[in-house]
Each structure stands twice: as C-alpha cells, then as structure tokens.
C-alpha cells in the first residue's frame, strides 16, 4: 500500500475506504483553523519582543513544509497514529506503528511527514531521512516533531494546538476525563514574565508568607481565622495562581473573595509591617450582620460566617441560589431526603464534606439515611448528659475520643420519637453520624464554651490531638460495619483519609475576657505562633501541647478529578 500512496491525505482516504471508521474532522478542523488564526495574531503581537530562542515557530523547514502542504498531514498523523481519536484509529495505530525495517514496536517509532514511513529511532528513521531527504518526522508516542535538518525537536504553536485537540479527543474516546495540564503562560503572562524578570522563592527561613495582623479592638478572633485561612495550602495555591473570577468587577470593597485575594498578595509581598484588616472587618460586618458589633466574638462563628460570605461571593452570578444551581444542573428540585451538594466554588471544594446521618428505627430496624454537607465538625467535650452506658460517662481526652463519640450511635430516647417510614408510626430510634465524604480541609471545633442550664463555663481540659490524623475509622462504610462489634477494630488505613495538622486556634482566658492566638504551619514543618501582630517561631511540641479550640487538618494526598 505504501508503495503507491505518497501523501498522508491519500493514505487517510485509503484508510477510510478500507472501512477504518470515520474520523470526525470536519467541524473540528474549522474550529481549529479559527484557533490557529487567533494565535497568529497573538504571535505577531509579542514576537518582536521575544528573544531568539523564545519561539513557538518551529524552524524554517517546518514552516516551509506547512506552507506547501498545510496542516492536514499533521492532523491525520495525530488523530490516527499519535493520539488515536477512535477505536478504528487505535486499530490502525497498532497495525501500522512498527518499524518498517526491524519490525519492532519500539523504541520510539517515528512517522515521516513527507511519505508514509514508520521507523524506529535506533537508526532506521535516520537512514530514511538521509536517503530520502525527508527532514521532518513525528514521534508517534508523544507527538513531537523532529527536524533532521536542524537536528532537534521543534515546537510550533499551531501544530501544538492540533496535537492538544487530538489528545483531548483521544482521552474522551477512551472514556477518560480531561487530562491535567501543568500551567503554561499565555501570551499576556509571557510578556508579564518578561517585563518582571525577578523571581522570589520563599525558603524555609524567609519571612515571606508571614504577616502580623493589627488588632482593631478585640478582633483577635478575626486575626487568628485569617491566619489559618492564609496558611491553608490549597487556598493559598488558588489565590496565588489568580484563579478567582470576580462577579463584582474586582471591586475589593464589595467582594470578600477579592479582599482575601489581596491579603494573600500582601502576605507574600515581603512587607514586614503588620497588616490592618479594617476593610475585611467592614466587609464581614456588612455581609454577615449577625456578627457585626464591637464585642468579643467567637472565632468559630467568625470562621463559619467568613466561609459563608466567601462562598456566596464565589457563586456564579446567574445562578444565585443553590436551589437555582441545582435546578440548572438536575432539572428537578432536590428532594429533602437527599440534599446533594452541587456548588463547586473553591470554598466548597476545599471545606465541604458530607456527613451521613442514619436513623434506625428500634421497632423495625429500618434505616433512614440522609447526607448533609458540613464545613466543620463540632465536638463535645464534657460528659454526655443523657448517656447511661459506661462509655457515655467518660470524658474524652483526645481528638480520637471526641470523634469516636461523635460517630457513635446515639439513642434518641422516648421523648424524641421519630416517624419511621417503615412502620409508619412514631418510634424510638437511634441516630448515628458518620463521614460520607471527607473535605480537603477538615476543621474541628472543640466545644470549650459550654452554655447549658444558664451555666456558662469554659472547659479547659486538655485534649490531645495528633499531628497526623487518619479519618478512616470514622468513615461511613467503616463505622457502620462496626456497629455490632462495639469499638473500632484495627483496619488497614486508606491513605486518602490521612490528614496533617496545619493550623490551631487557641483561646486563652475566661469566657468573657479572653484572647485568641493561632499556630500556623508554613513550608510543611515550620510552625509559627501568631498573636495579632506578633509572629514568633514555635515548635510542633508547642502546638501539640496547646489547648486547642479550632483544629485545621489538610488532606495529605489530593486527587485530581
């Protein structure tokens, strides 16, 4: 076949006529062309300012080839032999991509762009190019173009686009999601990078990323939460990579997310003077009226309110309420039983987990399950007021104890009968909370402030918490199986459920007069104590020995969707 077919287009037609299947090229090509013409525009704009090596222009040989034969050969090779966009193409690739000389599939088969010729990189493709004077070949695994005349792989933005497009289609045809691609600067960012050649690299011993916060008058509750937020690894990555798209025209006097974004810039600016968060306070007060007012505030309440405002400001303006959003996605309103969380803003991506609540009817053993989103987990510290068993009487001494208690089945008692769907009557039941979906940042709130029976007091018992936490025992699947065995048996742990401590908020003093401080982690293992404008070094021992009011854990392993 290759003896009488000399161009890739012919070859392509040949493949099609042999029933190789159709390759959807028509519409996409038109789009591709539109794309490439815009890149041309871009290129002409920034080209002059870019130095010699800074070219996505390929080489003279490639340009020459493109001007005579167009991009069609690239498209065919890419969609059939590099990134197979269909099953038929995969079959063709398996069939054709072998070295025509040594008949092996390896190593690194290249396809000649000028004629239909496949050969390996171990000399045979070189032989072909010298004997035939065909300079351009394509690597069939990675899709890179090798110019023999230049003796190097060359890069061309137009061809690159074709390749990327084909690769995406290939993944789709295999049922894979979009591939993760590392950040690459676009032309605007490129010029910015050129205009600002200085780079700052925070080292473990630098002050970059740390900033004191001025107390605006009993606002330490805010300072410590802001410190915890600005040291949340994923949130930092989000804001430092400038991902926020504002719905208020980047007006940081109206948008809390923009204000937080600005804070991150400030934290990493290298400026050493403490920051004044007056704008932030004003924003929070305007958007969360229940927090407004000059008084001692609860850091936990502030944390939740801040997340709520951030979440609201993140939302796509056209879909203002979660309900509308849900409707737009699913077409029918959510049922009460299954409140699926649909928001995909950065706050929900990082902080929202799913809490499963199982209510078991004591009469018929019917289970009613609901899953609710949560931003944090509030853990009781005192002895259980209604409990009867021995386990209920003991006071927790560690975070694991608290979590164990949190996820323990709770008897709802005779005064709180719930209508059972199974037996259609009001029955006593037990309720159990477990983790259905873990958030990326898991925040625990130790309920140190007790307000019961008109008695307000602070519980200052020491609760130990680990630097690394495994949430596996508290997962829904794990916990529910354990119900009958009473207690947590040792199970192989899932590495996806592992967490590391990165911030701790502490409260010192009494209920009515106290002060908040925060410990934050920087550079994986450096700890700092943030006391308003004072930032000092701390050790992990200091952190683990502290009382702990809010504990922030970050997932150790992140998966990309």
């Amino acid at each position: 076949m290759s003896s009488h077919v000399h161009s890739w287009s012919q070859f392509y037609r040949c493949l099609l006529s042999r029933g190789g299947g159709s390759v959807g090229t028509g519409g996409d090509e038109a789009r591709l062309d539109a794309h490439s013409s815009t890149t041309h525009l871009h290129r002409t704009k920034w080209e002059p300012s870019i130095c010699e090596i800074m070219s996505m222009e390929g080489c003279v040989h490639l340009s020459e080839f493109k001007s005579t034969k167009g991009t069609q050969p690239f498209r065919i090779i890419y969609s059939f032999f590099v990134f197979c966009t269909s099953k038929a193409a995969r079959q063709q690739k398996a069939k054709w991509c072998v070295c025509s000389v040594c008949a092996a599939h390896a190593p690194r088969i290249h396809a000649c762009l000028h004629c239909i010729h496949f050969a390996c990189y171990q000399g045979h493709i070189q032989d072909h190019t010298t004997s035939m004077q065909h300079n351009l070949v394509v690597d069939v695994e990675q899709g890179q173009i090798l110019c023999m005349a230049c003796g190097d792989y060359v890069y061309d933005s137009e061809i690159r686009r074709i390749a990327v497009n084909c690769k995406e289609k290939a993944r789709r045809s295999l049922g894979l999601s979009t591939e993760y691609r590392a950040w690459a600067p676009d032309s605007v960012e490129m010029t910015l990078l050129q205009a600002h050649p200085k780079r700052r690299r925070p080292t473990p011993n630098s002050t970059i990323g740390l900033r004191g916060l001025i107390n605006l008058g009993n606002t330490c509750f805010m300072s410590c939460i802001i410190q915890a937020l600005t040291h949340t690894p994923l949130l930092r990555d989000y804001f430092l990579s400038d991902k926020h798209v504002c719905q208020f025209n980047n007006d940081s006097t109206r948008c809390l997310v923009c204000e937080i974004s600005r804070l991150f810039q400030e934290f990493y600016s290298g400026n050493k003077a403490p920051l004044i968060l007056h704008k932030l306070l004003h924003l929070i007060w305007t958007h969360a009226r229940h927090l407004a007012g000059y008084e001692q505030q609860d850091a936990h309440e502030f944390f939740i309110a801040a997340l709520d405002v951030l979440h609201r400001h993140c939302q796509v303006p056209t879909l203002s309420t979660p309900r509308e959003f849900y409707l737009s996605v699913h077409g029918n309103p959510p049922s009460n039983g299954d409140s699926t969380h649909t928001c995909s803003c950065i706050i929900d991506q990082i902080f929202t987990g799913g809490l499963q609540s199982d209510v078991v009817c004591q009469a018929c053993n019917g289970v009613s399950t609901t899953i609710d989103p949560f931003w944090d987990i509030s853990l009781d510290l005192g002895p259980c007021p209604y409990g009867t068993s021995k386990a209920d009487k003991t006071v927790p001494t560690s975070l694991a104890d608290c979590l164990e208690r949190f996820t323990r089945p709770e008897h709802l008692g005779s005064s709180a009968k719930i209508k059972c769907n199974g037996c259609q009557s009001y029955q006593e039941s037990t309720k159990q909370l477990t983790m259905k979906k873990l958030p990326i940042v898991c925040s625990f709130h130790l309920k140190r402030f007790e307000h019961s029976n008109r008695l307000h007091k602070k519980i200052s018992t020491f609760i130990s918490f680990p630097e690394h936490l495994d949430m596996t025992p508290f997962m829904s699947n794990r916990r529910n199986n354990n119900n009958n065995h009473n207690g947590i048996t040792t199970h192989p742990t899932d590495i996806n459920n592992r967490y590391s401590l990165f911030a701790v908020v502490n409260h010192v003093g009494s209920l009515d007069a106290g002060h908040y401080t925060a410990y934050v982690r920087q550079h994986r293992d450096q700890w700092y104590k943030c006391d308003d404008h004072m930032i000092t070094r701390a050790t992990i021992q200091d952190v683990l020995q502290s009382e702990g009011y809010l504990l922030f854990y970050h997932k150790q392993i992140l998966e990309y969707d």
Partner: protein
Amino acid sequence: MVHPGVVPLGEEKPRWSLPVSTVRTRGQSEVWSAQSGVGGGGEGEEEEEEAEEEGEAGGGGGGRAGAGDRMALVSALTSPDTLEALAQFVAQELLDDAILNVVFEVHQSVKTGLLVLEMGSLEEDTKFLQVSAEGLDVFGQAPVKKQQECVCPSCSRNLAASRFAPHLEKCMGMGRNSSRIASRRIQNSTKENSGGGPVGGGGAAASDDDEDEDWLVDRKRKKRDKNSPRRSKNAKLAKAGDGVSSSGSNSNNNSNSGSVESTLASGSAEEKRAMLKQICGVVSEHTRKMCTRSLRCPQHSSEQRQAVRDQVLSGADPTTTTRAADSTTITTRGLGGEGEDIQVDIDGLDEGQLATSWDNDHSNTTSPADSTSTNNSTSSLARRTKTKKKSSSSSKSSKSSSSSHGSLLD
C-alpha cells in the same frame, strides 16, 4: 513545571495497575477477534501486548511469543516465566514513556525559552531572612506598638487602627445606641447637604466630634471649645477660631455636597431603595417617624417593613398619609431647589432622604455618631431659613434649635 503528584506517571496509572490476569484474558479475546477477521489488529493502545502478539502487524522481537498460533500464544501466556517477562516488558515500556514525556516537556520549555523566563533572576533572599532573637518577632521587630492609622471604609475618616472596631460599630449604626446615633448622623448630613452648604453643620459636627474624640489619632485636642469643629484633618489644618475652621469644613462639604444634593433633589426610586436597604423604615404610630434602626430591628415585623417599602417605591411618602396638615410641611422644591412637587413632611423627608445621603456621604463633617448626648444639630426650620448661606453663626442656630429637634431623638 511538572506538577508534583501529577507527573505523567499518574496518567499512566490505569495501565500500570492492570492485573496481569486481565491482560491475559483480554489478550485472548482480542486474538479471537483478530482471527475472525475484523479489520486487523487488537485495540493496541492500552495493552501494548496485544499489538505485539498481533501476527499481522509482524510484531515479535525480544521475548515476545511467536505470532499466529493461538494455542501457542495461550500456552506461552500461561507460563509464569513468559508472563513475568511480558509484565516486565510492559512496565519498562510504560516507564520509558513516562520519562520521555517529562524529557520532552523540559526540552520544550528550554527550547522555547520558557524555562529561562520562569526561572527569571532570583531575588536575593537575605532581606527576607527570619530573625530569631529574644523579644523580637520573626521580622526582627520589637513588640512596641506603633500607632497605626487606617481610613474607615464607611465614613472615610482617619483613625487609630486599634480603635477601628468600636468606631465601625457606631459608624455602621449598630450597638446599643445605634438607632439614635444613626438618626442623628443622618440628620446632620442632610441639613448640611440640603442647605447647599454647611449651615449650622459646623456646630453640629463639632459636638458630635467631641464625643468621637477618643477615636481620633490626635488626642491633644480633647479640651477644645465645644463649638469648634473637630474633624481630625480640618482641625489640624485650621488652627484658628471657629470661623476659619468652619470654612475649612465648608470647603470640605462643598466638594462633597454636589452628589448628595442631587441625590436629595431627584430622589429616584433607586436611591430610595438604597436607603431602605439601610434602615428599617417603618413609620411609628406614636411619633409618626420612620424607624432608623437596622433592617433587623426587632420592634417591627418584616410585613410592616414590606408595607413601607411598597408605599415608598410607589411614590407616596409614608408619613404624609398620616400627617398631611402639619405646620412644618414643605415642598421638596423649597428644600432641594429643584424637583418634585410632592408634599413631604419635613421630618419624614429628613429621615428618609437623609438615610440616602448617609449611605453616600463620606464627608468628614458627619460624625459616625457616638454617645447619647442630645446637644446638637440645627433644626429643619433653622436650616430652611438659612438655606444656601454660609453662616458663621451656625453654632448659635444650632443651640437655639436643638430643642425643636429633640423629638427626633427619642
């Protein structure tokens, strides 16, 4: 460049984790289909093995099984040694692929100059080094508090950062006395604005500022005469007596009055709406005044609030309906100099439109409010008579009229 954790290896993962047994069975079925004559070839991509076993493709270098004979192939695959070798081969292939991927990525960024660009020139980090010394923070700063100043986003005043929270509370009209403070504040601002000049404003603001003194950075001025204006900036600028400083405030006002005046005059639905976003607005049955508490005011129900809103936005003044024939009734034309002919009760107007200006006014002349002292402000009557005149006797008028306005403050 290559994101940690997502190195192409991750991408290859599904292939890696293919259990050998699956590979084998799928390999078999592929061979079957190849035998039955489907256009040639297994679906190579994922399981390269298949392609290699493919007789038609002429594969089979190295340790790979001979082509063609299905039985031979199956038996070869069942032998643990061959299987091991094949697994090794596939693993090697995938590893090579992954490495090549990275190599190409780096090559490209070097060749296109991106690497150089991304690296840039490293800033010297010595100036950012941490200090570890007793009594100093990591920045090497001693914990001595330097007085920091900030500008209130609500009223644009300059004040000490450490007193910002208590200031903001009052500035935003919250807290214990917020309602009356806010109403006074609103009142002051309209008087000045509607009058086209700060008639009497100097006096009013002065007394307000007096109580606000402790927020100001400049504490030395605490003992000044009650009637002298005391806005932090102007006071500093104008060191002379009342006349001079009030003219200082005049200029300040004038720069600002334009927008507020127009707001007042036109009073569009938009602005009314803005105002109603700030205050409760329900008209009291006893005092016949609009409630100036916040929207969450517990005294009135949301139904009541809604009713007022409907009324206001439909063009009617809620207070006139109950108090048409009042001696203080004037037209807006008289007040603002232009605009509507609607009969408006002066007090209702005051509060309503003032709320609008409260929202917009950032001039220093309005105090963000303060304690409960009632000594303040020109009355609406006084204002009317002195419209558009810059009077230096503002303090007098303020005193004389304070009683006439007392009703507003209860």
